[in-house]
């Protein structure tokens, strides 16, 4: 049953991706991206990744969409018809896709428990987390405790990205009066 729901949602995801590829109006692309994120969050719930699904639904579908809409408001919302040839990119993409599909043939089937990924680190986390950290949500325990350095670095990345955007868009109030920004869209 889980596998069937997963297949149905993944099919919808593929359809939305194709729609994003062919769509020319950037506003429609942004709305489709939002739909894509919600579908992705649903797939993640089926894959038992509830924490990740919650993040994807709030970050991907809400904040990313708002940021993309903001950027579209400041720029153009229509994509020009392409001038360069599309044969070479299509050929490249298909070649890469064919090679990757060939590579997946040796991967273990979906949802089996005896694959290498489930043998090594995960059982230790699942068995020892109650004794060592004492909180039942294993994802939070790994995120904040076992891999605390990882999350510290990641919080720093968010901090740096925020500072970068504030600097680029002149969000910081302390601005150099001499160094005028190139404002005129010539």
């Amino acid at each position, binding site marked *: 049953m889980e596998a069937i729901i997963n297949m149905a949602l993944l099919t919808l995801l593929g359809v939305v991706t194709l729609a994003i590829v062919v769509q020319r109006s950037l506003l429609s692309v942004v709305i489709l991206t939002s739909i894509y994120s919600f579908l992705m969050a649903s797939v993640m719930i089926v894959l038992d990744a*509830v*924490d990740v*699904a*919650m*993040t994807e639904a*709030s*970050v991907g579908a*809400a*904040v990313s969409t*708002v*940021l993309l809409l*903001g*950027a579209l*408001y*400041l720029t153009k919302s229509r994509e020009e018809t392409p001038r360069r040839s599309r044969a070479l990119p299509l050929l490249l993409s298909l070649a890469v896709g064919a090679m990757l599909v060939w590579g997946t043939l040796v991967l273990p089937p979906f949802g089996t428990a005896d694959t290498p990924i489930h043998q090594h680190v995960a059982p230790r986390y699942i068995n020892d987390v109650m004794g*060592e*950290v*004492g*909180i*039942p*949500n294993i*994802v*939070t*325990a790994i*995120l*904040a*405790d076992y891999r*605390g*350095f990882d*999350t*510290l670095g990641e*919080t*720093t990345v*968010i*901090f740096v*990205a*925020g*500072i970068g*955007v*504030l600097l680029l*868009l*002149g*969000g*910081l109030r302390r601005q150099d009066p001499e160094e005028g920004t190139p404002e005129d869209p010539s």
Partner: protein
Amino acid sequence: MNSDVILRVGTKLILPFILLFAIYVQFHGEYGPGGGFQAGVIAAAAVILVAITFGHSAAKRIAPRGLVEHMVPLGVLIYAGTGVACFFLGGNYLDYGVLAHDPIHGRHLGIFLVEIGVAVTVSGTMVALFYAFVERGR
């Protein structure tokens, strides 16, 4: 901003529940799905919803620009400060066991503080990004 009455009333109705949900996700993250990232983004989404419905100045009354911009580094400081506190209490950096008398309680406290740090940075950054894009358009 002269928007739809349904949108305005609906926003007012739903807003406390969004914020309450953010707090629930933040503090229940150790027992159910959730944590600092999710809570931060949900809280930021509430501010963005106010900005979209009632206009930019209304959102700035809830979350002033200066506050939001100070939240961006403050969260990283809380996170790193927790690590330094562990350091001075005799443990390794980010080894929360020494924060309380019982190692398990210390870990609970450490995870709690770290998640607050993450939530502060993430919510501050998301709102600051939104403000930056909005104010560029004026």
